[in-house]
């Protein structure tokens, strides 16, 4: 009898505390004597700081400290790049507080620590900062002119560049029967988790221990940066993760505040809490998605793709943050998508502008790249008179070509190799669900007076990033299994999924498992939660650790029963004899006692615990296809999505209930991002979308019918679970799919969507410009 928790649609273990108001988010933490911080931010996009007068603020009753750049340690270093670094980016890093210059609206200038948040905000209002405003650039095309340079030491706004090369692309273009060139722009928007960022820090001067509570995705990395910044041993810094109100890539990176709050707590000698408000979040937390791309495609007349050349400009904002060049680099790295494209060149350019710094947002670079590629494919199909679906089917990498080597499209110099997949199968299932052929045969102008269109897009997504992730599993009193992980969780349901994996791996009921995560004290090393990596990496570590612990349990049991471990098996939390039928021979509560010190049945260390790290350098690649049917009102520019389909192969689906939740939720988020959301700046670098009245998030009225098809047709050969990760696939082709559908609907007007969002005013403008 084998257990089958993996694959079952089990409701979540963690739900009860969220449903009853008993969860503990960051702002719910209260420490004795705790003070509250608020941050003064620059109102200017670009200005020199002449002076800062904090006297009046400091004299206010209830104010404990006002911290400016001059109060920072002389040894203060800028915040380093965590991943996706390029030579040159180090010239544009952010210090925790602005020194001589501010470079975006929202740049932190001072921190107030006070008795409560109300007083701290009062004090912000009386800090007098004398600014000398400077000209600002709010667009990469302006930035590239270098008329205004953000970082004097760099001497240019083009702070980093690199080129990816596959095959002889110039040869492919010179021989091609067909080429086409276009320019695309993806709009700046971001994750906007419903809980804003925040931190609590507390320093025990007696023991020299610093505790930091904060919803982080990479706590070990953040601890290491903080250790450098504060010149403290990393062993004396302890990160704890509370419940977290969503992340979507932007939360939990090391931001200026991640230094300022612990620094303030040490300085005032009391616990300090900081929670940003929504306007701060919109102007200070990472933005994403903004890429400009000139792209050229070459093909044979029969639609066989031959090559792509692209110049990609990432709008980095005012500072290079922890993600380095991830957005333009992954836009470039995955631009060729799931198709057989033998030659490729991409120039990646990182351009500084006077806007908020950028980083990842769910499917970083992939949303952008899919939009560029899939729009181009529709244009190729139209030019060559081939059905867009047929063009894609003809060029999708086939299952018999797996594993498929794309070439050197990673900026770390490694090859992109698709591990496994049946791309045409996912494609066909998505189109069948939408009823693509039937919809395509309908007239565009329907009896409802609106213009109907169909859009499709395929994608492949790197997931399961290494290099390692760990799990420590302990069997404790009463047969309770405790699993300690380095990863964090931001609402995905890891406590349930990880328990399912552990239950099957160990042979115990799920109820007996407790999952602990998000503290640097649980495991000394961890990479963290991002890029759909947790199920692949932590799940595989659990599988390995559960196997090791099971072996120890059977060894202890065998010694006590005077038999061989091979004669025993563990299932449903009981030890059974393989040779004699009948009931269990030992239960786990008893096995725990046998392994306790003083009562040890087997030699070696007391207790029953196993720690394993799963290590891998190669990435897994999930893949899928989106398809949409839209109706566009040409009078108002409003789009109605009549049906949206996502087919996604996740390799191995641990919990269909949760995976469908990721899929529908991801698609909904992408639909909002594509149609409603935009971080609009004026030409002077002022953010015009600083509230939820200007930055529109999708509501229950905005989400269409979404069908999610979760596939397990191509398990990954790279890990013991066969998993590829889920969570990002459903968002990353939403821009591409809806832009294709709108372009199809408005084909009679000659509309060719090359920019986003698909807002009513943009759609009206495109109709006007294409069809005067």
């Amino acid at each position: 009898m084998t257990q089958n928790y993996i694959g079952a649609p089990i409701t979540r273990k963690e739900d009860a505390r969220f449903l009853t108001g008993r969860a503990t988010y960051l702002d719910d933490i209260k420490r004795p004597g705790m003070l509250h911080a608020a941050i003064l931010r620059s109102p200017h996009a670009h200005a020199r700081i002449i002076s800062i007068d904090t006297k009046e603020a400091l004299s206010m009753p209830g104010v404990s400290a006002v911290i400016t750049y001059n109060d920072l340690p002389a040894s203060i270093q800028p915040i380093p790049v965590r991943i996706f670094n390029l030579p040159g980016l180090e010239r544009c890093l952010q210090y925790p507080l602005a020194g001589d210059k501010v470079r975006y609206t929202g740049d932190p200038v001072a921190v107030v620590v006070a008795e409560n948040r109300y007083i701290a905000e009062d004090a912000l209002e009386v800090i007098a900062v004398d600014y000398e405003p400077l000209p600002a650039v709010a667009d990469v095309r302006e930035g590239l002119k270098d008329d205004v340079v953000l970082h004097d030491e760099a001497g240019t706004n083009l702070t980093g560049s690199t080129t990816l090369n596959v095959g002889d692309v110039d040869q492919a273009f010179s021989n091609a029967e067909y080429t086409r060139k276009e320019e695309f722009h993806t709009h700046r928007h971001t994750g906007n988790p419903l809980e804003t960022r925040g931190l609590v820090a507390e320093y025990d001067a007696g023991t020299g221990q610093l505790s930091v509570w904060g919803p982080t995705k990479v706590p070990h990395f953040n601890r290491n940066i903080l250790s450098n910044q504060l010149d403290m041993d990393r062993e004396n810094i302890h990160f704890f993760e509370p419940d977290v109100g969503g992340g979507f890539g932007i939360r939990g990176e090391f931001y200026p505040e991640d230094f300022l709050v612990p620094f303030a707590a040490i300085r005032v000698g009391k616990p300090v809490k900081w929670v940003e408000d929504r306007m701060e979040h919109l102007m200070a937390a990472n933005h994403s998605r903004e890429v400009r791309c000139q792209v050229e495609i070459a093909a044979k007349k029969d639609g066989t793709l031959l090559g792509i050349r692209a110049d990609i400009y990432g709008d980095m904002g005012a500072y290079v943050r922890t993600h380095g060049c991830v957005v333009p680099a992954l836009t470039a790295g995955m631009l060729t998508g799931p198709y057989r494209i033998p030659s490729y060149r991409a120039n990646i350019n990182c351009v500084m502008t006077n806007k908020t710094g950028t980083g990842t947002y769910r499917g970083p670079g992939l949303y952008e790249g899919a939009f560029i590629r899939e729009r181009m494919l529709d244009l190729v199909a139209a030019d060559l008179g081939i059905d867009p679906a047929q063009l894609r089917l003809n060029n999708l990498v086939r299952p018999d070509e797996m594993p498929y080597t794309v070439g050197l499209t990673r900026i770390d110099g490694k090859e992109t190799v698709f591990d496994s997949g049946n791309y045409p199968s996912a494609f066909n299932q998505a189109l069948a669900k939408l009823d693509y052929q039937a919809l395509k045969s309908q007239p565009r102008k329907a009896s409802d007076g609106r213009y109907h269109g169909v859009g499709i897009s395929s994608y492949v997504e790197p997931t399961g990033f290494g290099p390692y992730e760990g799990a420590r599993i302990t069997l404790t009193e009463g047969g309770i299994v405790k699993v300690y992980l380095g990863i964090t969780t931001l609402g995905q349901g890891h406590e349930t999924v990880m328990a399912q994996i552990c239950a099957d791996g160990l042979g115990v009921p799920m109820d007996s498992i407790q999952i602990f995560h998000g503290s640097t004290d649980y495991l000394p090393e961890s990479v963290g939660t991002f890029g759909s990596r947790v199920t692949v990496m932590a799940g595989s570590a659990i599988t390995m650790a559960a196997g090791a612990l099971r072996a120890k349990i059977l060894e202890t049991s065998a010694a006590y029963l005077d038999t061989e471990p091979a004669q025993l098996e563990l299932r449903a939390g009981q030890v059974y004899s393989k040779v004699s039928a009948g009931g269990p021979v030992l239960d786990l509560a008893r096995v725990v006692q046998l392994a306790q010190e003083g009562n040890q049945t087997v030699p070696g260390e007391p207790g029953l615990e196993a720690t394993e790290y799963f290590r891998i350098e190669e990435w897994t690649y999930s893949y899928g296809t989106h398809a949409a049917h839209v109706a566009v009102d040409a009078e108002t520019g409003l789009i109605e999505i009549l049906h949206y389909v996502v087919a996604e192969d996740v390799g191995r689906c641990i919990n269909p209930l949760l995976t469908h939740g990721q899929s529908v939720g991801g698609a909904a988020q992408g639909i909002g991002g594509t149609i409603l959301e935009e971080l609009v700046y004026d030409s002077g670098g002022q953010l015009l979308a600083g509230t939820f009245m200007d930055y529109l998030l999708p509501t229950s009225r905005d989400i269409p019918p979404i069908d999610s098809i979760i596939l397990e047709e191509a398990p990954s050969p790279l890990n013991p679970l066969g998993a590829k990760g889920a969570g990002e696939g459903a968002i990353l082709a939403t821009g591409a799919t809806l832009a294709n559908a709108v372009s199809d609907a408005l084909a009679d007007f000659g509309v060719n969507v090359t920019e986003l969002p698909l807002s009513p005013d943009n759609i009206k403008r495109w109709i006007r410009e294409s069809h005067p």
Partner: protein
Amino acid sequence: MTTNRSIRVTVNGQEYQREVEVRMTLADFLRESLDLTGTHLGCEHGVCGACTVLLNGEAVRSCLMLAVQTDGASIETVEGLAPDGELTSLQLAFQQNHALQCGFCTPGLLMTATAFLRETPNPTEEQIKDAISGNICRCTGYHSIIQAIKDVSQS
């Protein structure tokens, strides 16, 4: 410049008398003065609905009200839904339908849905969509939330 006033409110059936600063919001009063941290703040400008509580039975945004305005009122928060720890049918339907992921919007949605179902015990899907359109959820895409409310209204 700030002044205090004494207020008396009933929260989840329990009476409280407290001195509050007149500028303190109802949300901060619940969270800081009464330690009822189940009510969450997502935007503090009345758009996201995470801070929704019931004031004399009506769903309101506790970030847009001052505590002093509630003097004499009866307030219900998420902590009052299942006082004995046993999940209500609405809470169970949320769990069954996976109608929450990060859980941050969930208390506000539960309170909005509670008030809505009292007035509209057998709603149509369109009515449900309208009723929760003032509560933003970043995770689920709403389908599961709508289904959960539908399930409990039909049971």
